[in-house]
Each structure stands twice: as C-alpha cells, then as structure tokens.
C-alpha cells in the first residue's frame, strides 16, 4: 500500500510539473503573440478562483455549512495585503517575489484572523442561520470599505473608496505554485484526523460529539482555514488587478463561488479544481469573443447551474475525488486487454 501511495504521489507531482511546463510554453515563448497578456490574465484569474472555490468547498462539502460571504474574506485579504505592500514599496524597493510572498502572507493571515473571530460566535449557529451571518459579515466589510475608504497613508498610491496603484506582482509562475501548495495543504487537512472528525460532524453531530470530538473547535478551525485561503486568493487578486473596488466583492461574487463549488461537486476538491478555471475563464472568454455577451455572464451561470442540477444533481464529480493515477490504471488495463484480443 505505501508503495502504491508513493506511486500515486509521483504521478501527481509529474502532472503538476507538466502543467507548469505547459503554462511556461504558452506564455514564455510568445506563441500567443499579442494576445498573450490577455490569456495570461485569464490563467491567473482561473487559479485564484481555484483557491477560493476549494477553500469554500471545505465549508460546503466537508463541513456541510453554506457560506455566502466568501467574497468578504477575500476582500479582507485583498485590502490588507495591498495596504501593506504599498506601504513597503514606498519605503524600499523589494524584488517582486518577496513582495508577493509578503502579500500572500499578510492577506491570508488577516482573513484567517477575521474568520476566526467571526467563527467563534457564528459557528454556534448552523444551516440557514450561519449562512445569513456570513452574508452579513461580507456586507459589513463591503459597506465599511465603500463608505470609509482607506485613509491616504502614502503618496504614490491613491487611497480612498477605490484603491489603485498596487504593485503588480502576481506573476502566474508564483500563483501556480501558490495554488498547488494551497490545494495540497487543504487536501492534507481533509485527510487528517481533523478532516475525518469534520466529516463525522457533517454526518451526525450528536454521534460525533458522543465519540469525543470537540464539535465547536473543529468547526472554528475549519472556518478559519477556509477564510485563510480565501484571503490568499484575495491577495493574489489584488496584486494582479492592481486596483481594488469594494463593489467587486459583492453578494453575487460570493454566490458565484458557491455556484462553482456546487457545480464541481461539493465534497470533491478535484471537482472544484476542474470547475473553477472553466467557469471563471469561460464567461470572460465569451465576452472577449462576443463583446455584446458580456452582460449575460450571470445568465450563462444560471443556465449551466440549472442544467447540471437537472442532469447531475450532486455536481460534476459528486463528492468523489477524481484520481489521475486511477484513470491511468484504467487506461493501461484497457489497453492491455485490448492487446490480448
């Protein structure tokens, strides 16, 4: 068994490296020519969507609680990291990788702390009530940001209701590695004893409590981790788009994340990994090809959502993990039997 696991890990690592090389091939060699920058952007968007959707899947799929406020945690990560990096780059000139790492760290930790503080009282609730609280938190953050703005602390960046002049350091190489690391950590968490406890709580709270699982602690921990990675996504977003507007992080953003989780299959990280890039990049691509279509983004969403819910109510991957090694195994077996015939 450990040997097989080693093999599986090896296959996954190879897949990750191949993905990285493919991206480099696409963007570093200049095959795409003029459009390179545009597609580059799509890839970065797809990747930070993947992180935030996976983090939301921790709550929805594994904890069984809905959050309609992930855009709020994302905005905390975005603003916190942007403020810190702007302050720093006013003082000293740091290489972009260092600035990027600082941004990621600050954004994640800030969102994680807020998630923890919100989680302690909020997780006494569950179901619809918790959902309402998450909406409220996100709205409070958005309203505060759009009404108070950020006081002008430095010269080079324009502060205020919108926040411009953030260093553009979210290079897709860094973002790709960040995404892989984030997903790996979340995967490890789910496979750990805490993850198992989490699933036990989702299935039966009373039985879990009777088995000696600390229900509140496990839930708060998960909520914090989820908010932490939402903050990571926010930091990446801020340092890619360079201008933050509070209205971006509105309710429809939160529901978009939730829609992607459900489409990919709640309780399936791989489902989120597949669904997030497609659903985040697809509407952009459509509006790029047919500009008139841009305002029908949410309509496309609704149609996809309805169609998937009719034909595959549990989402594309429906609570199961897609496994590359298993697929390869199936493939090679098929070939072997075909060869015999």
């Amino acid at each position, binding site marked *: 068994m450990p040997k097989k696991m080693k093999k599986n890990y090896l296959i996954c690592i190879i897949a990750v490296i191949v993905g990285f090389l493919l991206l480099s091939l696409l963007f570093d060699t200049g095959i795409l020519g003029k459009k390179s920058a545009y597609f580059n952007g799509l890839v970065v968007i797809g990747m930070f969507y993947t992180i935030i959707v996976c983090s939301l899947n921790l709550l929805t799929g594994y904890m069984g609680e809905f959050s309609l406020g992930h855009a709020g945690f994302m905005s905390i990560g975005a603003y916190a990291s942007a403020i810190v990096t702007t302050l720093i780059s006013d003082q000293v000139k740091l290489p972009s990788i260092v600035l990027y790492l600082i941004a990621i760290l600050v954004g994640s930790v800030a969102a994680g702390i807020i998630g923890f503080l919100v989680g302690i009282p909020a997780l006494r609730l569950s179901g619809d009530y918790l959902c309402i609280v998450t909406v409220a938190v996100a709205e409070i953050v958005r309203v505060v940001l759009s009404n108070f703005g950020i006081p002008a602390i430095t010269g080079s960046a324009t502060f205020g209701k919108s926040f411009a002049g953030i260093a553009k350091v979210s290079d897709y190489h860094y973002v790709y590695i960040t995404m892989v690391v984030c997903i790996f950590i979340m995967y490890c968490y789910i496979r750990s*004893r805490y993850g*198992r*406890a989490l*699933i*036990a709580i989702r*299935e*039966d709270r*009373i*039985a*879990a*409590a*009777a*088995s*000696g*699982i*600390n*229900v509140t*602690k496990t839930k708060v921990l998960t909520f914090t981790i989820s908010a932490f990675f939402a903050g990571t996504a926010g930091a990446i977003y801020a340092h890619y788009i360079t201008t933050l507007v509070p209205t971006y992080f509105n309710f429809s953003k939160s529901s978009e994340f939730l829609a992607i989780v459900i489409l990919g299959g709640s309780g399936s990280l791989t489902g989120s990994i597949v669904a997030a890039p497609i659903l985040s990049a697809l509407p952009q691509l459509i509006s790029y090809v047919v500009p008139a279509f841009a305002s029908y983004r949410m309509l496309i969403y609704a149609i996809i959502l309805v169609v998937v819910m009719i034909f595959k109510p549990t989402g594309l991957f429906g609570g199961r993990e897609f496994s590359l090694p298993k697929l390869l195994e199936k493939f090679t077996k098929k070939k072997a039997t075909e060869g015999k015939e």
Partner: protein
Amino acid sequence: MLKVENLNVHYGVIHAIEDVSIEVNDGEIVTLIGANGAGKTTILHTITGLKKATSGSVTWDDTNLLAEEPSKIITHGVAHVPEGRHVFVDMTVRENLEMGAYMYGRKDKDKVIERMDHVFERFPRLKERQNQLAGTFSGGEQQMLAVGRALMSDPKIILMDEPSMGLSPLLVQEIFDIIKEVNKQGITVLLVEQNAKMALKVANRAYVLETGKIKLSGDAKELLNNDDVRKAYLGA
C-alpha cells in the same frame, strides 16, 4: 459510580427535568423507563454534556461531569450510544469504529488496533463487513455498530439511548443479549428504554420517569410485577 443528584434541566421556559436523582453502581444494569417526552434522552444528554443543566450535579467516580467539556467526558470512561442509531452513514465500518477511538489521538495507534480487535472479536459480523459503508447496514447492524463504536473507547460505563427503537422483535432480543454480554464483561450500563418489558427483564434496578420526575424506583424484577407499572407501561 454514577450519581445524578437533584438535576434540573430547562428547554427555554419548559422545565424538562425536575429534581431527578439517579444512582448507578459499578457493574449494574440500571434502566430508565418512561413514555415519549418523559425526559429520558435529556438526562443522558445532560450526563454527556450535550445539554446544559440548570442546577444539580452529575458525578462519576469523583469527577464532576457537568464541569467537563463534552469532548472530554469520553476520556473518563463514559461512552454514549445516542438514540436512533447515530452512525456515520458515509463512512465504512472500520472508519466508524476509528471515530469511536478518536480520543486516543494519533500517538496511541496500538491501543486503537487492540480495541478494534476486541470489538471485531465480539462482533464478527462487523469484521466481515469492515469495508462496507455503514449506510448500507440494516437497522440492527447499525445499532451493533453504534455499540461497537462506543466500546472502542474502552468505557467503564455505557449510556444507551433506546437501542431497541425501530427494530424487529428478533433484533430487539439480539440487542438486549449484547447489552447483557457487555455488562458481563464488567461494563456498567445505564439503559434508557421505552420497551419497558425488555428493559426491566435485563436490568438490576430501574427508575420510572414521568414528565421529568422520577415516579417510581426499585428492583427491576419487582417493578415488572408492580401493578401501576404493568398498567402504564406493559399493557397488562
């Protein structure tokens, strides 16, 4: 020894448990019988910390259980089999049992394996189906699994909440045999039941609960022949 003294529990303004005192001596099977809504489950939930008491005390071998975290109570040797076969339906049998040993943590793997062997020895049927999802089990098998899961923590006392609920008469008999056997191994049992006849047959002592108050108590065999009890709970 489990000692519940002058326990009062409220749900909002509703006084669900009024001045209830119960004693369970080591090695005994004590049953708590009563109709629907009498407060039997509430008492068990209060003992394991799932419900907060308004006043009174619950002590287990000098430990004040009311002051303990719910997740710590199992470490004192108090296991709880919740009502209605609460198993983790999307987990395999083995995973369900592992959850029962959650309190041992990562370091005590040998202990988990030892307990697992112990449970498998007692319930060979669980061993046969250890990789099957618990949700595919029949009611009786799920109840067996729930008991097995409670045994994983090597308890000194098991609190059982209506183990016979929704089971066929044949399976009810089987579950009560399991209870007797568990008790023979030296584990104290506090049994909450609506099936008064069966419960009184296996128990040493019994308490009759009516709308949150203890109405009668005494030797189980005597209560079985008590006219009031017969009229109210045994239908004869």
